[in-house]
């Protein structure tokens, strides 16, 4: 797609990240294009995709089956039916075949669920108690972050406050607690208590449907890299851009199955699209905002370390300080631990040679994850530029100027000292 641009018609940008902007204008990514970077991000995509395959299945399971169970003690014990739930974008039955692998859960994930790190076939409860499992809490935290932050675009969030949504939710709640007078009585006393829970579960479904798409995309990129078809960082980015466009129209809905009957809390007919109602809010909430880590920021009101406005929150993976990962109060540790189990061999050898090798692999892969997320953000920026603005090789200088202003506006968000954009420019940041 990226034709080699003829002589740049615009004067060099005066922005602080001028050379990154020029790289973007040439169809590149925020991440410098080096083989080492490519190896890291593709390896991390594969390691991130395997737990993600569990995350989206469990999120959908909680949103659709566990629903309002007051004591969901076994919500992380995924039933076989959801392990075999066919992914809409992989295998033969796919709507759009993104990954050539099969639609059910990834083999490495199934092996891990069965034997775990202790390499013994134990019942699921023992694996759970030994904390030898996928850290599903991280996925729930992401869903809660998307739910808590407001004003991120898309019609999903306003719809949750609409009367129609409340009516759908009411029907589902009554059906769920049919024959349970206590809960129904409590529902009559405090309706909003339950409706708020259902809103949270709708975001669970939202994130589950979003990740259902990303997992096959990452698996496909890892397979292509293994086959040598992806050789540069821009190629990887463009695969993501095409993926974003290809699945932009995928519907975002929330169906609840109560005693075999399906209640459509958010029907597909509302026309919520994957790009606007899931992808962009996810990127804004998880990549840019989330919430300050209790391990490094004080929540004391008089200390004023927590920003007063949600839009000023800058604690997502693009800003996170990954070095204290592994110590107390650093939420990304859960995800890094999940990815540690599924690192591809070439990445494990790569980490063996740097820093403390085996001992602090968790931090090294955390930083590679940060690089890979900068690549995904570049893909999102390029996709938005393609959708809303002009192609890179547009002859009209006014269009190129509009493109540049858009890039500069996106990179202005990384002027903040905590942003890691400067660090990922060179290889020594590990």
């Amino acid at each position: 797609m990226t034709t080699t641009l003829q002589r740049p018609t615009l004067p060099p940008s005066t922005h602080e990240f001028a050379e990154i902007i020029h790289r973007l204008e040439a169809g590149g990514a925020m991440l410098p294009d080096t083989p080492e970077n490519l190896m890291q991000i593709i390896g991390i995509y594969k390691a991130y995709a395997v737990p993600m395959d569990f995350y989206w299945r469990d999120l959908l399971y909680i949103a659709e089956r566990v629903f309002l169970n007051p004591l969901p003690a076994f919500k992380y014990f995924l039933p076989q039916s959801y392990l075999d739930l066919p992914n809409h974008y992989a295998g033969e039955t796919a709507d759009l075949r993104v990954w050539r692998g099969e639609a059910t859960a990834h083999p490495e994930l199934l092996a891990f669920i069965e034997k775990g790190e202790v390499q013994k076939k134990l019942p699921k409860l023992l694996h759970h108690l030994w904390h030898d499992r996928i850290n599903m809490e991280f996925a729930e935290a992401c869903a809660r972050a998307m739910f808590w932050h407001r004003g991120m675009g898309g019609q999903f969030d306003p719809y949750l406050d609409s009367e129609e949504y409340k009516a759908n939710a009411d029907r589902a709640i009554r059906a769920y607690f049919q024959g349970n007078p206590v809960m129904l009585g409590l529902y009559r006393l405090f309706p909003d208590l339950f409706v708020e829970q259902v809103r949270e579960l709708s975001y669970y479904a939202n994130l589950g449907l979003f990740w259902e798409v990303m997992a096959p995309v990452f698996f496909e990129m890892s397979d292509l890299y293994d086959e040598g078809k992806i050789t540069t960082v821009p190629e990887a980015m463009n695969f993501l851009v095409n993926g974003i466009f290809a699945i932009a129209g995928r519907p975002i809905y929330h169906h609840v199955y109560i005693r075999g009957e399906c209640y459509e809390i958010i029907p597909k007919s509302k026309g919520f699209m994957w790009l606007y109602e899931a992808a962009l809010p996810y990127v804004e909430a998880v990549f840019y905002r989330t919430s300050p880590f209790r391990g490094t920021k004080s929540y004391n009101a008089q200390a004023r370390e927590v920003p007063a406005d949600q839009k000023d929150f800058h604690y997502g993976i693009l800003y996170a300080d990954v070095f204290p990962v592994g110590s107390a109060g650093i939420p990304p540790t859960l995800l890094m631990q999940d990815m540690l189990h599924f690192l591809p061999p070439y990445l494990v050898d790569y980490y063996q040679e740097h820093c403390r090798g085996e001992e602090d692999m968790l931090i090294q892969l955390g930083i590679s994850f940060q690089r890979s997320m900068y690549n995904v953000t570049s893909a999102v920026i390029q996709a938005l530029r393609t959708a809303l603005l002009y192609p890179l090789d547009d002859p009209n200088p006014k269009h190129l100027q509009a493109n540049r202003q858009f890039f500069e506006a996106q990179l202005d968000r990384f002027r903040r000292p905590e942003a890691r954009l400067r660090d990922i420019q060179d290889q020594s940041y590990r």
Partner: protein
Amino acid sequence: MILSTLIWFPILGAIALALVPSRYLKWAALILSGSILLGSLWIAYQFDITQPLIQFREDLPWLATLGLNYQLGVDGLSLPLIILNTLLTWIAIYSSPEATERPRLFYGLVLLISGAVSGAFLAQNLLLFFLFYEIELVPFYLLIAIWGSEKKSYAAMKFLLYTAVSGALIFVAFVGLVWLQGADSFAYTALAGNTLPLWQQLILLAFVLIGFGIKIPLVPLHTWLPDTYVAASAPIAMLLGGVLAKLGTYGIFRFGLGLFPEAWGTLAPGLATWATVSVLYGATVAIAQKDIKRMVAYSSVGHMGYILLGGAALTELSLVGAVAQMFAHGLILAILFHLVGMVEAKVGTRELDVLNGLMNPLRGLPLVSALLVLGGMASAGIPGLVGFVSEFLVFQGSYAVFPLQTLLCVVGTGLTAVYFVILLNRTCFGKLDNAIADFPKVEWRERVPALILSLTILFLGLQPTWLVRWSEASTHAMVAVLPPVTQVTTLAQVLDRE
């Protein structure tokens, strides 16, 4: 015969090490010092704790004309220190880094020191004690001057001068004693028996006090300590603080209290005040330090004051506490110097302003900082660790005699807690600065000594009978023979008089 092996086995071993091929050198030194350690433990096993007097006595005529006979013996006061000496020697050898250059000379000197110090503790002849006391001076000078870190020559020279002066003063006291008593030999038992007029005792005691005061050290005489401990490498600092300092306190008790009881009684209030000044001075200066090794060095100055306070109060409890504090302080200082040495070796600096957040489990030194917390809190006297037991015995024992000084020393433990919290807050807590965070890995071999020491500290803290049972009989005998110190009765009388 067993006591002589404790002395000559290491000294001969030091020479024998020259023949061992360099690959097995460390193992040979370890086996040697390990066998000495087992020997001392076996003595402890044989030791009859109900018997207050000297046991395992050895007596060989040597230079009768000079009055110097080879007389050895061990009692409740010296036994714990012997065990401490052999234990710390083994740990010093074990924790000395692989890459020490000229290892033969290093291990030889360390073993020589171990033999000389054991000799000093066991000597029952004043001149023999002085002989061994002087032998360990030159090896220490070499150990500091050759293997030390920055400013090592200045520190080694300063240490040499100070200890030489201390040796001279002690020699004057011993010779004066024998000359005044007209005794024919330097045998301890003979000299301890009859007494001199008070004013002569006071003069000789003054010499003994200043002589050993330099070694302990006590406040005005202490300025060699921070430079020497900081310049010495970690294993040597462990020996210096753990073992050498105990020579000073042992000397005061054996030759000051033992030989001049009346003089000691009259000087007791002054000694107690001197102890309190030493405690408060050491703790206050330590707060202002910016280098963690200097901070630990000054903590040693502070903790020695408790031993002197225990000695000055002269109740049975305070003496037992003082002996226990000697052993406890030896252990605590050893683990602190070992850990500080590890921090310096891995992080490369000892500056408080640079060190930060070593508790990071993946890139920091998590176990080292955990043990640093344990060592710091043991030194600050947190119960459940050996530091509290000995300090409490000293306080409870000396409260009855010197209430005011004891309470000020309690404030001293508070100040100790202050500077250890400052140390821990900077080095362990806080966020690890990744720019300096690529320390080499800490192998298990380097952690073993710290673990052994911390286990002993915890065990003795929870089961203190094992710490105090050795010296109970001897201190009881020591106090019984002495006239009670002109007791400043309880707090009430003190208050009434004001």
